[in-house]
């Protein structure tokens, strides 16, 4: 992002978003904004297809070994999953609101909502680790068919269920962490005044990514926690 000094006036007072110029190879800021959005949508398509592998694996093994899937699902507590769903939905709301405030030039509301979004992401990971991963792990409910044995298992195919569970939620959790980092970076830039009504590409694009992370959880939650 090349910024050039403002045309006139005291450049110290002009907020950075007013000084923003599109990169040299774009004809206008609008064109750059559209290109970035299209790029992110394409990237989201690849993310959906990445998770599609997990979902197809889930569907096939569920069909083949329904009992193992029912048993596996019964070890999960839907209340923690539900709480995390609420946490993510709230974060999606604050993310959408951030874009709104960037468009209206409400700088403090923009910063506040971005920060809440990051904290929600952190809360999601904390709940996941404290109440789900760590207790299960210490109870021997870990991924892997030959490093661990499953004395509690009622069906020989339960290790497979744990494999899908850990791969699906684990890769999703990684996306949450990446999303949080990106939003935090946007937050730092927002503090310097990079975003405003004329230029909020970063908030918009990272927001799109965050909504997808949310959406994937919306599919993982019922599949893993609710249907047995």
């Amino acid at each position: 992002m090349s910024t050039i000094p403002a045309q006139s006036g005291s450049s110290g007072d002009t907020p950075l978003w007013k000084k923003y110029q599109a990169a040299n190879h774009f004809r206008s800021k609008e064109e750059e904004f559209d290109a970035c959005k299209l790029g992110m949508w394409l990237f989201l398509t690849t993310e959906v297809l990445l998770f599609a592998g997990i979902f197809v694996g889930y569907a096939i093994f569920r069909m083949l070994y329904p009992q193992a899937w029912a048993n596996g699902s019964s070890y999960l507590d839907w209340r923690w999953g539900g709480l995390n769903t609420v946490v993510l939905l709230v974060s999606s709301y604050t993310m959408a609101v951030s874009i709104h405030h960037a468009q209206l030039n409400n700088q403090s509301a923009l910063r506040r909502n971005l920060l809440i979004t990051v904290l929600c992401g952190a809360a999601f990971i904390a709940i996941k680790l404290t109440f789900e991963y760590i207790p299960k792990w210490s109870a021997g409910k870990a991924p892997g068919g030959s490093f661990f044995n499953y004395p509690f298992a009622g069906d020989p195919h339960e290790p497979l269920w744990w494999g899908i569970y850990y791969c699906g939620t684990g890769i999703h959790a990684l996306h949450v962490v990446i999303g949080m980092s990106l939003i935090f970076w946007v937050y730092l830039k927002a503090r310097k005044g990079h975003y405003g009504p004329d230029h909020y590409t970063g908030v918009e694009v990272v927001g799109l990514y965050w909504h997808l992370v949310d959406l994937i959880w919306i599919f993982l939650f019922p599949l893993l926690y609710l249907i047995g």
Partner: protein
Amino acid sequence: MSQHAATADGNEDMSTIDHHGSHAVGGHHDEGSYLSPKGGMISTMWAWATTIDHKKLGVMYLAAVLTLFFLGGVAALAVRVELFQPTTMVDGQITGQVFQVEGGAVSAGHAIYNRIFTLHGAIMVFMVIVPGIPSALGNFLLPIMLGAKDVAFPRLNLLSWWVYVIGSVLGVVSIIMGGVDTGWTFYTPYSTSTDWDVYTRVVLMIGAAFVLGFSSILTGLNFVVTVHKLRAPGMGWFDMPLFVWAIYSTAIIQVLATPVIGITLLLLIFERLFHVGIFDPAIGGDPVLFQHFFWFYSHPVVYVMILPAFGIISELITVHAHKKIFGYRAMAFASLGVAFVSFLVWGHHMFASMGEMASAVFSALTFLVAIPTAVKVFNWVATLYKGSIQFTTPMVYSLFFLFLFTIGGLTGLPLGTLSTDLHLHDSYFVVAHFHYVMMGGTIIAFVGGIHHWWPKMFGKMYNELWATVGACLVFLGFNLTFFTQFILGTRGMPRRYATYIPEFTDLHQLSTYGSFILLLGFLVHLFVFIHSLVAGRPAPKNPWGGLSLEWEADSPPIEHNFHHEPLVKHGPYDFETNVPPHWDPKDYPIPASNFTAAKH
């Protein structure tokens, strides 16, 4: 997306450049060639390593791809040398085995053979053919052909280059550690159980393919956005050169198919490291699921390999025959059609593991691929009809392509037919078919394309005579190497075997001789390229008389490609109505006696 998509109006105006005031290039102007060094050697190297210029990235990809092509080619020659004679045991003496382990059994030598053909396959597929044309020529040409200054996301482009480098290094490290013997397909459960002594090699090689996939996705994404957003004023969708259409279709496959191999390889790595048993039947998984996932990517990806080659041939044939392409829209839609059908045919790699109904459906869908590809071949031939054909190296390569690709395509039909596939699958017939398409198609078009755009990329002409000699050697060697393999396949020679029954010896030896003629041909090309860089005559702006926008840029182009943003007033193939800009027929390396541009 259509704010500047005013279509060309068929204006007979000869000039294509309009000094377009309102869109004048802003900011700093560097009018020197993109190749001219800045400062000392260290700073020049640093400038190249951190460049976001699509042209420099394209040249770096080209260098890397050609180097890896050499590495993969040496492995192929090693395979052919081993197959020169069958391995036999007479009185405890092993004869005919090249990779013999000192004091070891025959099987130890065969294990080395397995690693070498895997090395050949993995390098050629993941590091050469998939990224080859889109990343090297596509990066260099796509923005110029669109009249843009760069791709939509130049820094992302730099990232995908370095991701490609990291992936290739991982693959090469895995080879240095001793190599992988799974074949390039990594089928489970073999790939999750082989080499437990130093199991990291398999993980490294799979990791390399995963990382290279990332590079492929980012490049594809970048190209799709570039085509949508950065076309020059006046360039509508149907004013784009067909090379751009081909790269666009390729990019769509790259974006939509690669994530699936991403998750598959990731799960395979988890399986290898943590025993998450999704694919290994010993721990509850399903190996056929792996094959479905693998081919859901890897079948579309063979069209990632061949589609850009189609694009190159469309450019080469039109420019070197000075003839408007026959059926422009049919060509553009055939590219998209191939991309679409490519997603529906993965099951033909698993006829043996599916039910009858599913096999029949996949067989029928497979035949659909023949329609758009045949449309293309017929259109190229129709384009040549009554054209002013000049037998330059690019044209010679185009004609070779038509010949070889047609054989490659037609031999795909018996493989898609259930009853014949039963006999031919996993035989040398498949090997020969694949090489006729991938090498006779993609590599031949790639080398032809390198010659066509060489003057533009490096600003130097190459020696036409010696380049043609090299091309003919490649053609001869290629056919000798692989046509024999069709015959071997129909007689029952199975693929991936390190030895064979003595009856096959003659054909195998012919094939090996052919592979060395192939090597000779490529060495001739190498020397032609080096000679051109050192002592080639400076290239004019438009040596071949092309009409697409890259021929309006300098040779080599300036850093921002064009001095002024071009305004497109005619289609890329309107040779009947337009004299190519900056063109003097005397520039043609072959004397053109009765040859004028607008003689039709």
